[in-house]
Protein backbone atom coordinates (compact mmCIF):
# COMPACT_ATOMS: atom_id res chain seq x y z
CA UNK A 1 0.00 0.00 0.00
CA UNK A 2 1.30 3.47 -0.92
CA UNK A 3 2.36 5.80 1.81
CA UNK A 4 -0.13 8.55 2.65
CA UNK A 5 0.89 12.18 2.76
CA UNK A 6 0.66 13.56 6.27
CA UNK A 7 -2.02 16.29 6.54
CA UNK A 8 -3.92 14.92 3.52
CA UNK A 9 -7.59 13.93 3.77
CA UNK A 10 -6.65 10.32 3.00
CA UNK A 11 -4.14 10.27 5.82
CA UNK A 12 -6.70 11.68 8.27
CA UNK A 13 -9.26 9.10 7.13
CA UNK A 14 -6.78 6.24 7.50
CA UNK A 15 -5.97 7.35 11.04
CA UNK A 16 -9.67 7.76 11.85
CA UNK A 17 -10.38 4.23 10.60
CA UNK A 18 -7.57 2.80 12.74
CA UNK A 19 -8.93 4.50 15.86
CA UNK A 20 -12.48 3.42 15.05
CA UNK A 21 -11.27 -0.17 14.74
CA UNK A 22 -9.51 -0.08 18.11
CA UNK A 23 -11.52 -1.81 20.82
CA UNK A 24 -9.04 -0.53 23.40
CA UNK A 25 -9.70 3.06 22.36
CA UNK A 26 -13.44 2.62 22.81
CA UNK A 27 -12.83 1.37 26.35
CA UNK A 28 -10.13 3.88 27.35
CA UNK A 29 -11.98 6.89 25.91
CA UNK A 30 -15.33 5.96 27.50
CA UNK A 31 -16.69 9.05 29.24
CA UNK A 32 -14.47 11.53 27.39
CA UNK A 33 -16.12 14.81 26.43
CA UNK A 34 -14.38 17.51 24.44
CA UNK A 35 -12.81 18.10 21.07
CA UNK A 36 -9.05 18.40 20.53
CA UNK A 37 -7.30 20.88 18.27
CA UNK A 38 -3.69 20.22 17.28
CA UNK A 39 -1.62 23.11 15.98
CA UNK A 40 1.53 22.18 14.07
CA UNK A 41 3.66 25.26 13.62
CA UNK A 42 5.17 25.88 10.23
CA UNK A 43 8.72 24.79 9.48
CA UNK A 44 9.74 25.89 5.96
CA UNK A 45 13.04 24.01 6.26
CA UNK A 46 11.04 20.79 6.68
CA UNK A 47 8.75 21.61 3.73
CA UNK A 48 5.91 22.73 5.98
CA UNK A 49 5.46 26.33 4.80
CA UNK A 50 2.24 27.07 6.74
CA UNK A 51 0.84 26.21 10.16
CA UNK A 52 -1.31 23.07 10.01
CA UNK A 53 -4.48 22.53 12.03
CA UNK A 54 -5.79 19.09 12.90
CA UNK A 55 -9.07 18.38 14.67
CA UNK A 56 -9.91 15.26 16.64
CA UNK A 57 -13.58 14.80 17.45
CA UNK A 58 -13.79 12.09 20.12
CA UNK A 59 -16.79 11.60 22.37
CA UNK A 60 -17.43 8.92 24.98
CA UNK A 61 -15.35 6.27 23.24
CA UNK A 62 -16.70 7.12 19.79
CA UNK A 63 -14.69 8.66 16.95
CA UNK A 64 -16.81 11.27 15.18
CA UNK A 65 -13.98 12.31 12.91
CA UNK A 66 -10.37 13.28 12.38
CA UNK A 67 -9.59 15.97 9.84
CA UNK A 68 -7.68 19.06 8.84
CA UNK A 69 -9.55 22.26 9.73
CA UNK A 70 -9.02 26.01 9.77
CA UNK A 71 -7.14 27.86 12.49
CA UNK A 72 -10.27 29.11 14.24
CA UNK A 73 -11.85 25.70 14.66
CA UNK A 74 -8.64 24.11 15.97
CA UNK A 75 -7.87 26.91 18.40
CA UNK A 76 -11.40 26.99 19.80
CA UNK A 77 -11.41 23.31 20.73
CA UNK A 78 -11.78 22.40 24.42
CA UNK A 79 -8.21 21.08 24.41
CA UNK A 80 -5.54 22.65 22.23
CA UNK A 81 -2.08 21.12 21.86
CA UNK A 82 0.46 23.11 19.88
CA UNK A 83 4.11 22.83 18.99
CA UNK A 84 6.68 22.83 16.20
CA UNK A 85 6.16 20.42 13.31
CA UNK A 86 9.30 18.46 14.25
CA UNK A 87 7.85 17.66 17.70
CA UNK A 88 4.62 16.36 16.20
CA UNK A 89 6.62 14.17 13.87
CA UNK A 90 8.45 12.76 16.89
CA UNK A 91 5.11 12.04 18.59
CA UNK A 92 3.74 10.35 15.45
CA UNK A 93 6.85 8.19 15.21
CA UNK A 94 6.72 7.32 18.94
CA UNK A 95 10.03 9.06 19.55
CA UNK A 96 8.39 11.52 21.95
CA UNK A 97 5.71 10.80 24.54
CA UNK A 98 3.13 13.57 24.15
CA UNK A 99 2.73 14.20 27.88
CA UNK A 100 6.49 14.15 28.51
CA UNK A 101 6.80 16.61 25.63
CA UNK A 102 4.33 18.91 27.38
CA UNK A 103 6.26 18.73 30.65
CA UNK A 104 9.47 19.62 28.83
CA UNK A 105 7.93 22.53 26.98
CA UNK A 106 8.23 20.86 23.59
CA UNK A 107 4.44 20.92 23.24
CA UNK A 108 1.94 23.27 24.85
CA UNK A 109 -1.42 22.21 26.26
CA UNK A 110 -4.34 24.58 26.72
CA UNK A 111 -6.99 22.86 28.80
CA UNK A 112 -7.51 20.85 31.95
CA UNK A 113 -4.47 18.58 32.37
CA UNK A 114 -6.02 16.33 35.05
CA UNK A 115 -8.88 15.56 32.68
CA UNK A 116 -6.44 14.58 29.94
CA UNK A 117 -4.48 12.43 32.41
CA UNK A 118 -7.66 10.60 33.42
CA UNK A 119 -8.07 9.52 29.80
CA UNK A 120 -4.36 9.19 29.07
CA UNK A 121 -4.62 5.59 27.93
CA UNK A 122 -7.15 6.67 25.29
CA UNK A 123 -4.81 9.44 24.13
CA UNK A 124 -1.92 6.98 23.95
CA UNK A 125 -4.02 4.44 22.06
CA UNK A 126 -5.06 7.05 19.47
CA UNK A 127 -1.38 7.88 18.93
CA UNK A 128 -0.51 4.19 18.68
CA UNK A 129 -3.14 3.91 15.94
CA UNK A 130 -1.46 6.80 14.11
CA UNK A 131 1.84 4.94 14.13
CA UNK A 132 0.09 2.13 12.22
CA UNK A 133 -0.70 4.49 9.35
CA UNK A 134 1.98 4.30 6.67
CA UNK A 135 2.79 8.00 6.64
CA UNK A 136 4.96 10.11 4.38
CA UNK A 137 6.11 13.27 6.11
CA UNK A 138 6.82 16.46 4.12
CA UNK A 139 10.52 16.29 4.93
CA UNK A 140 10.98 12.56 4.29
Amino acid sequence: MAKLDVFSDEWCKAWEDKVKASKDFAVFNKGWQGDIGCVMLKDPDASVPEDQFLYLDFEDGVVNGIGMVDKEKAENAKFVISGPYVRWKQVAQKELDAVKGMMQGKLKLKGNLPYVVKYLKGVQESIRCLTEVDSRFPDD
Partner: protein
Amino acid sequence: MAYDADLNFNYFGPTKVIFGPGSIGELSMEVSALGRKAFLVTDRGIIETGLVDQVKEKLGNLLAGVYADVPQDSGMDVVDQGAESALASGADVIVSLGGGSVIDTAKGMCIVMKEGGGLKDFQGMQMLTRQQTPHVVVPTTAGTGSEVTSGAVILDKDQGQKIIIFEYFNTPRVAILDPRMTEKLPANLTASTGMDAMTHAVESYVSQTRNPISDAAALHAIKLIVKYLPMAIENGENLMARGQMQIAALLAGWAFSNAMLGLVHAMAHSLGAICRIPHGLANGILLPHVMRYNSDEVSELTADIAQAMGVAVSSMDVSTAASAAVDEMEAFIRSVGLDQRLSDLGVREEELEKCADLSMSDGSVIYNPKMVMDAAEVLNVYRKAY
Protein backbone atom coordinates in the same frame (compact mmCIF):
# COMPACT_ATOMS: atom_id res chain seq x y z
CA MET B 1 21.33 2.84 38.34
CA ALA B 2 21.51 2.00 34.65
CA TYR B 3 19.91 4.27 32.08
CA ASP B 4 18.35 3.35 28.77
CA ALA B 5 20.65 3.49 25.75
CA ASP B 6 18.35 6.08 24.20
CA LEU B 7 18.37 8.26 27.32
CA ASN B 8 17.32 11.80 26.49
CA PHE B 9 16.23 14.56 28.77
CA ASN B 10 15.99 18.29 29.33
CA TYR B 11 17.28 19.71 32.57
CA PHE B 12 15.90 23.08 33.63
CA GLY B 13 17.01 24.88 36.79
CA PRO B 14 17.44 28.61 36.18
CA THR B 15 16.83 29.92 39.71
CA LYS B 16 19.63 31.86 41.39
CA VAL B 17 20.22 30.44 44.87
CA ILE B 18 21.51 32.57 47.76
CA PHE B 19 22.23 30.52 50.85
CA GLY B 20 23.44 31.21 54.36
CA PRO B 21 22.45 32.56 57.76
CA GLY B 22 21.72 36.25 57.27
CA SER B 23 21.26 35.93 53.50
CA ILE B 24 17.90 37.71 53.81
CA GLY B 25 20.08 40.82 53.82
CA GLU B 26 20.51 40.30 50.06
CA LEU B 27 16.78 40.71 49.41
CA SER B 28 16.67 44.40 48.56
CA MET B 29 19.58 44.11 46.12
CA GLU B 30 17.91 41.20 44.35
CA VAL B 31 14.59 43.05 44.11
CA SER B 32 16.32 46.17 42.77
CA ALA B 33 17.98 44.09 40.07
CA LEU B 34 14.60 42.78 38.93
CA GLY B 35 12.30 45.79 39.16
CA ARG B 36 11.22 48.93 41.00
CA LYS B 37 8.69 47.89 43.64
CA ALA B 38 8.05 44.61 45.45
CA PHE B 39 4.77 43.14 46.63
CA LEU B 40 5.05 40.74 49.56
CA VAL B 41 2.91 37.58 49.64
CA THR B 42 2.69 35.72 52.94
CA ASP B 43 0.20 34.31 55.47
CA ARG B 44 -1.15 35.21 58.90
CA GLY B 45 0.94 32.58 60.67
CA ILE B 46 4.17 34.06 59.33
CA ILE B 47 3.14 37.52 60.52
CA GLU B 48 2.84 36.15 64.05
CA THR B 49 6.42 34.83 63.94
CA GLY B 50 7.78 38.32 63.32
CA LEU B 51 9.42 37.28 60.03
CA VAL B 52 7.20 39.58 57.97
CA ASP B 53 8.41 42.61 59.93
CA GLN B 54 12.01 41.55 59.27
CA VAL B 55 11.40 41.26 55.55
CA LYS B 56 9.50 44.54 55.40
CA GLU B 57 12.42 46.22 57.09
CA LYS B 58 14.86 44.73 54.58
CA LEU B 59 12.72 45.91 51.66
CA GLY B 60 12.33 49.43 53.05
CA ASN B 61 10.91 51.81 50.49
CA LEU B 62 10.99 49.09 47.81
CA LEU B 63 7.87 47.59 49.42
CA ALA B 64 4.63 48.46 47.62
CA GLY B 65 2.21 46.30 49.60
CA VAL B 66 1.50 43.06 51.43
CA TYR B 67 -1.03 40.29 50.83
CA ALA B 68 -1.30 37.99 53.85
CA ASP B 69 -4.58 36.16 53.25
CA VAL B 70 -3.12 32.94 51.82
CA PRO B 71 -4.80 29.88 53.40
CA GLN B 72 -3.31 26.38 53.76
CA ASP B 73 -4.78 25.03 50.51
CA SER B 74 -4.82 28.13 48.39
CA GLY B 75 -7.34 28.46 45.57
CA MET B 76 -7.68 30.26 42.26
CA ASP B 77 -9.86 32.93 43.89
CA VAL B 78 -7.04 33.72 46.33
CA VAL B 79 -4.57 34.04 43.46
CA ASP B 80 -6.84 36.40 41.51
CA GLN B 81 -7.52 38.53 44.57
CA GLY B 82 -3.82 38.75 45.42
CA ALA B 83 -2.88 39.67 41.86
CA GLU B 84 -5.45 42.45 41.85
CA SER B 85 -3.97 43.90 45.04
CA ALA B 86 -0.43 43.61 43.69
CA LEU B 87 -1.31 45.37 40.45
CA ALA B 88 -3.14 48.12 42.32
CA SER B 89 -0.02 48.69 44.42
CA GLY B 90 2.11 49.34 41.34
CA ALA B 91 4.53 46.51 42.14
CA ASP B 92 6.52 44.81 39.39
CA VAL B 93 8.29 42.16 41.51
CA ILE B 94 6.72 39.54 43.77
CA VAL B 95 8.42 38.44 46.98
CA SER B 96 6.92 35.37 48.64
CA LEU B 97 7.66 34.57 52.27
CA GLY B 98 6.23 31.28 53.49
CA GLY B 99 5.72 27.62 52.71
CA GLY B 100 4.37 25.84 49.67
CA SER B 101 0.90 27.37 49.65
CA VAL B 102 2.26 30.92 49.83
CA ILE B 103 4.90 30.29 47.16
CA ASP B 104 2.45 28.62 44.78
CA THR B 105 -0.11 31.39 45.28
CA ALA B 106 2.60 33.91 44.44
CA LYS B 107 3.47 31.91 41.31
CA GLY B 108 -0.15 32.09 40.18
CA MET B 109 -0.19 35.83 40.89
CA CYS B 110 2.93 36.30 38.73
CA ILE B 111 1.01 34.90 35.75
CA VAL B 112 -2.18 36.89 36.29
CA MET B 113 -0.19 40.10 36.82
CA LYS B 114 1.64 39.65 33.52
CA GLU B 115 -1.05 38.13 31.33
CA GLY B 116 -4.26 39.58 32.78
CA GLY B 117 -7.55 37.69 33.19
CA GLY B 118 -7.87 35.08 35.93
CA LEU B 119 -5.80 32.02 36.77
CA LYS B 120 -8.49 29.72 35.36
CA ASP B 121 -7.57 31.05 31.90
CA PHE B 122 -4.12 29.48 32.28
CA GLN B 123 -4.99 25.87 33.01
CA GLY B 124 -2.59 23.82 31.00
CA MET B 125 1.08 23.17 30.56
CA GLN B 126 3.79 25.31 29.07
CA MET B 127 1.23 27.65 27.51
CA LEU B 128 3.14 30.83 28.18
CA THR B 129 5.53 32.34 25.66
CA ARG B 130 7.30 35.04 27.67
CA GLN B 131 8.89 35.61 31.07
CA GLN B 132 6.36 36.24 33.82
CA THR B 133 6.49 38.70 36.71
CA PRO B 134 9.86 38.32 38.50
CA HIS B 135 9.55 36.33 41.70
CA VAL B 136 11.93 36.17 44.66
CA VAL B 137 11.17 33.35 47.10
CA VAL B 138 12.10 33.28 50.76
CA PRO B 139 11.00 29.87 52.09
CA THR B 140 10.09 29.51 55.76
CA THR B 141 9.84 25.73 55.56
CA ALA B 142 12.24 23.15 54.20
CA GLY B 143 10.17 20.77 52.16
CA THR B 144 8.19 21.97 49.19
CA GLY B 145 11.12 22.86 46.93
CA SER B 146 8.73 25.22 45.18
CA GLU B 147 11.36 27.96 45.36
CA VAL B 148 13.11 26.37 42.36
CA THR B 149 10.34 24.56 40.50
CA SER B 150 8.26 25.54 37.48
CA GLY B 151 5.06 24.12 38.93
CA ALA B 152 2.34 25.46 41.17
CA VAL B 153 -0.41 23.41 42.80
CA ILE B 154 -3.62 25.38 43.30
CA LEU B 155 -7.03 24.20 44.45
CA ASP B 156 -9.79 24.53 41.89
CA LYS B 157 -12.81 24.68 44.19
CA ASP B 158 -15.29 24.30 41.30
CA GLN B 159 -13.76 20.98 40.26
CA GLY B 160 -12.85 19.94 43.81
CA GLN B 161 -9.35 19.08 42.64
CA LYS B 162 -5.85 20.47 42.94
CA ILE B 163 -4.59 21.52 39.55
CA ILE B 164 -0.98 21.75 38.44
CA ILE B 165 0.19 24.75 36.47
CA PHE B 166 3.60 23.97 35.01
CA GLU B 167 5.39 26.78 33.16
CA TYR B 168 9.11 27.20 32.57
CA PHE B 169 8.54 30.93 32.08
CA ASN B 170 7.15 31.20 35.61
CA THR B 171 10.07 29.66 37.50
CA PRO B 172 11.21 31.88 40.39
CA ARG B 173 14.23 34.03 39.53
CA VAL B 174 15.83 34.00 42.99
CA ALA B 175 15.59 31.75 46.06
CA ILE B 176 16.99 33.14 49.30
CA LEU B 177 17.65 30.29 51.72
CA ASP B 178 18.30 31.83 55.09
CA PRO B 179 18.23 29.11 57.79
CA ARG B 180 17.09 31.75 60.30
CA MET B 181 13.83 32.03 58.36
CA THR B 182 13.00 28.42 59.30
CA GLU B 183 14.19 28.27 62.93
CA LYS B 184 10.76 29.15 64.33
CA LEU B 185 9.04 26.35 62.46
CA PRO B 186 7.48 24.01 65.08
CA ALA B 187 8.83 20.46 65.34
CA ASN B 188 5.72 18.84 63.87
CA LEU B 189 5.81 21.08 60.78
CA THR B 190 9.55 20.59 60.48
CA ALA B 191 8.89 16.86 60.37
CA SER B 192 5.99 16.93 57.91
CA THR B 193 7.62 19.39 55.51
CA GLY B 194 10.86 17.42 55.75
CA MET B 195 8.98 14.29 54.74
CA ASP B 196 7.56 16.22 51.79
CA ALA B 197 11.16 16.78 50.63
CA MET B 198 11.99 13.13 51.27
CA THR B 199 9.01 12.09 49.14
CA HIS B 200 10.11 14.40 46.32
CA ALA B 201 13.57 12.85 46.40
CA VAL B 202 12.38 9.23 46.49
CA GLU B 203 9.66 9.65 43.87
CA SER B 204 11.88 11.54 41.44
CA TYR B 205 14.63 8.93 41.87
CA VAL B 206 12.37 6.08 40.76
CA SER B 207 10.33 8.10 38.25
CA GLN B 208 9.95 6.95 34.66
CA THR B 209 11.53 10.24 33.57
CA ARG B 210 14.53 10.23 35.90
CA ASN B 211 17.85 11.44 34.57
CA PRO B 212 21.43 11.44 35.88
CA ILE B 213 21.33 15.04 37.12
CA SER B 214 18.04 14.66 38.99
CA ASP B 215 19.26 11.33 40.38
CA ALA B 216 22.38 12.91 41.85
CA ALA B 217 20.28 15.64 43.46
CA ALA B 218 17.71 13.15 44.77
CA LEU B 219 20.20 10.77 46.37
CA HIS B 220 22.10 13.58 48.04
CA ALA B 221 18.83 15.02 49.32
CA ILE B 222 17.92 11.66 50.88
CA LYS B 223 21.31 11.50 52.65
CA LEU B 224 20.91 15.03 54.00
CA ILE B 225 17.34 14.46 55.21
CA VAL B 226 18.22 11.22 57.01
CA LYS B 227 21.05 12.99 58.83
CA TYR B 228 19.66 16.46 59.48
CA LEU B 229 15.87 16.21 59.79
CA PRO B 230 16.05 14.52 63.24
CA MET B 231 18.54 17.20 64.35
CA ALA B 232 16.31 20.04 63.13
CA ILE B 233 13.34 18.52 64.94
CA GLU B 234 15.28 18.03 68.16
CA ASN B 235 16.61 21.57 68.20
CA GLY B 236 14.94 24.06 65.90
CA GLU B 237 17.66 26.62 66.55
CA ASN B 238 20.34 24.35 65.13
CA LEU B 239 21.08 26.51 62.09
CA MET B 240 23.45 23.93 60.63
CA ALA B 241 20.64 21.34 60.51
CA ARG B 242 18.10 23.92 59.33
CA GLY B 243 20.39 25.01 56.52
CA GLN B 244 21.17 21.49 55.37
CA MET B 245 17.44 20.73 55.33
CA GLN B 246 16.87 23.81 53.16
CA ILE B 247 19.51 22.53 50.75
CA ALA B 248 17.95 19.05 50.79
CA ALA B 249 14.52 20.47 50.00
CA LEU B 250 15.94 22.56 47.18
CA LEU B 251 17.84 19.60 45.68
CA ALA B 252 14.72 17.46 45.88
CA GLY B 253 12.79 20.32 44.25
CA TRP B 254 15.20 20.46 41.34
CA ALA B 255 15.04 16.67 41.07
CA PHE B 256 11.27 16.39 40.87
CA SER B 257 10.82 19.48 38.73
CA ASN B 258 12.82 17.69 36.05
CA ALA B 259 12.13 14.00 36.72
CA MET B 260 8.55 14.41 37.98
CA LEU B 261 6.81 12.56 40.79
CA GLY B 262 4.64 9.49 41.21
CA LEU B 263 1.79 7.75 42.95
CA VAL B 264 2.48 9.13 46.46
CA HIS B 265 1.84 12.65 45.23
CA ALA B 266 -1.22 11.68 43.19
CA MET B 267 -2.69 10.09 46.32
CA ALA B 268 -1.62 12.91 48.66
CA HIS B 269 -3.09 15.58 46.36
CA SER B 270 -6.40 13.69 46.42
CA LEU B 271 -6.35 13.44 50.22
CA GLY B 272 -5.68 17.17 50.33
CA ALA B 273 -8.53 18.03 47.98
CA ILE B 274 -11.15 15.69 49.49
CA CYS B 275 -10.18 15.27 53.14
CA ARG B 276 -8.10 18.46 53.62
CA ILE B 277 -5.13 16.42 54.86
CA PRO B 278 -1.89 18.47 54.96
CA HIS B 279 0.35 17.46 52.09
CA GLY B 280 3.50 16.57 54.05
CA LEU B 281 1.59 14.40 56.52
CA ALA B 282 -0.15 12.50 53.74
CA ASN B 283 3.16 12.00 51.92
CA GLY B 284 4.83 10.68 55.04
CA ILE B 285 2.15 8.07 55.65
CA LEU B 286 1.85 6.97 52.03
CA LEU B 287 5.53 6.91 51.04
CA PRO B 288 6.55 3.49 52.44
CA HIS B 289 3.35 1.88 51.16
CA VAL B 290 3.91 3.17 47.63
CA MET B 291 7.61 2.21 47.83
CA ARG B 292 6.49 -1.32 48.62
CA TYR B 293 3.91 -1.26 45.80
CA ASN B 294 6.61 -0.12 43.33
CA SER B 295 9.54 -2.11 44.65
CA ASP B 296 9.24 -5.15 42.36
CA GLU B 297 9.33 -2.80 39.37
CA VAL B 298 12.31 -0.75 40.59
CA SER B 299 14.12 -2.99 43.06
CA GLU B 300 17.61 -1.82 42.06
CA LEU B 301 16.68 1.83 42.46
CA THR B 302 15.00 1.13 45.79
CA ALA B 303 18.19 -0.65 46.85
CA ASP B 304 20.11 2.55 46.00
CA ILE B 305 17.78 4.38 48.38
CA ALA B 306 18.70 1.87 51.09
CA GLN B 307 22.33 2.79 50.50
CA ALA B 308 21.57 6.51 50.68
CA MET B 309 19.72 5.90 53.94
CA GLY B 310 22.69 3.99 55.29
CA VAL B 311 20.97 0.62 55.77
CA ALA B 312 22.36 -1.38 52.85
CA VAL B 313 25.16 -3.81 53.63
CA SER B 314 27.33 -5.64 51.12
CA SER B 315 25.86 -9.05 51.94
CA MET B 316 22.36 -7.96 50.88
CA ASP B 317 21.02 -8.89 47.48
CA VAL B 318 19.01 -6.30 45.58
CA SER B 319 15.64 -7.53 46.77
CA THR B 320 16.72 -7.59 50.43
CA ALA B 321 18.21 -4.12 50.16
CA ALA B 322 15.00 -2.81 48.57
CA SER B 323 12.97 -4.27 51.45
CA ALA B 324 15.42 -2.72 53.90
CA ALA B 325 14.81 0.71 52.31
CA VAL B 326 11.04 0.40 52.80
CA ASP B 327 11.43 -0.83 56.39
CA GLU B 328 13.88 1.96 57.17
CA MET B 329 11.54 4.56 55.69
CA GLU B 330 8.77 3.37 58.01
CA ALA B 331 11.15 3.50 60.96
CA PHE B 332 12.37 6.95 59.94
CA ILE B 333 8.82 8.32 59.80
CA ARG B 334 8.17 6.89 63.28
CA SER B 335 11.41 8.39 64.56
CA VAL B 336 10.46 11.92 63.47
CA GLY B 337 7.16 11.60 65.32
CA LEU B 338 4.72 11.59 62.42
CA ASP B 339 1.40 9.75 62.30
CA GLN B 340 1.56 6.27 60.82
CA ARG B 341 -1.98 5.70 59.58
CA LEU B 342 -4.48 7.73 57.57
CA SER B 343 -7.07 6.94 60.24
CA ASP B 344 -4.87 8.87 62.72
CA LEU B 345 -5.52 11.99 60.63
CA GLY B 346 -9.27 11.61 60.74
CA VAL B 347 -9.70 10.31 57.19
CA ARG B 348 -12.97 8.39 56.90
CA GLU B 349 -12.67 4.99 55.26
CA GLU B 350 -15.63 5.67 52.97
CA GLU B 351 -13.72 8.62 51.45
CA LEU B 352 -10.90 6.42 50.17
CA GLU B 353 -12.72 5.22 47.07
CA LYS B 354 -13.35 8.79 45.95
CA CYS B 355 -9.70 9.63 46.63
CA ALA B 356 -8.58 6.62 44.58
CA ASP B 357 -10.72 7.69 41.62
CA LEU B 358 -9.39 11.25 41.81
CA SER B 359 -5.79 10.00 42.00
CA MET B 360 -6.16 8.44 38.56
CA SER B 361 -6.54 11.91 37.04
CA ASP B 362 -3.61 13.49 38.86
CA GLY B 363 -0.68 14.44 36.64
CA SER B 364 1.82 12.73 38.95
CA VAL B 365 0.41 9.26 38.39
CA ILE B 366 1.75 9.14 34.82
CA TYR B 367 5.37 9.01 35.93
CA ASN B 368 5.04 6.37 38.62
CA PRO B 369 7.51 3.58 37.80
CA LYS B 370 4.84 0.91 37.98
CA MET B 371 1.99 1.58 35.56
CA VAL B 372 -1.14 2.17 37.63
CA MET B 373 -3.87 0.46 35.68
CA ASP B 374 -7.00 1.26 37.65
CA ALA B 375 -8.37 2.92 40.76
CA ALA B 376 -8.74 -0.42 42.55
CA GLU B 377 -4.94 -0.70 42.81
CA VAL B 378 -4.77 2.78 44.33
CA LEU B 379 -7.58 1.96 46.75
CA ASN B 380 -5.63 -1.10 47.86
CA VAL B 381 -2.61 1.07 48.72
CA TYR B 382 -4.84 3.55 50.58
CA ARG B 383 -6.33 0.68 52.61
CA LYS B 384 -2.89 -0.58 53.58
CA ALA B 385 -2.05 2.92 54.80
CA TYR B 386 -5.38 3.29 56.62
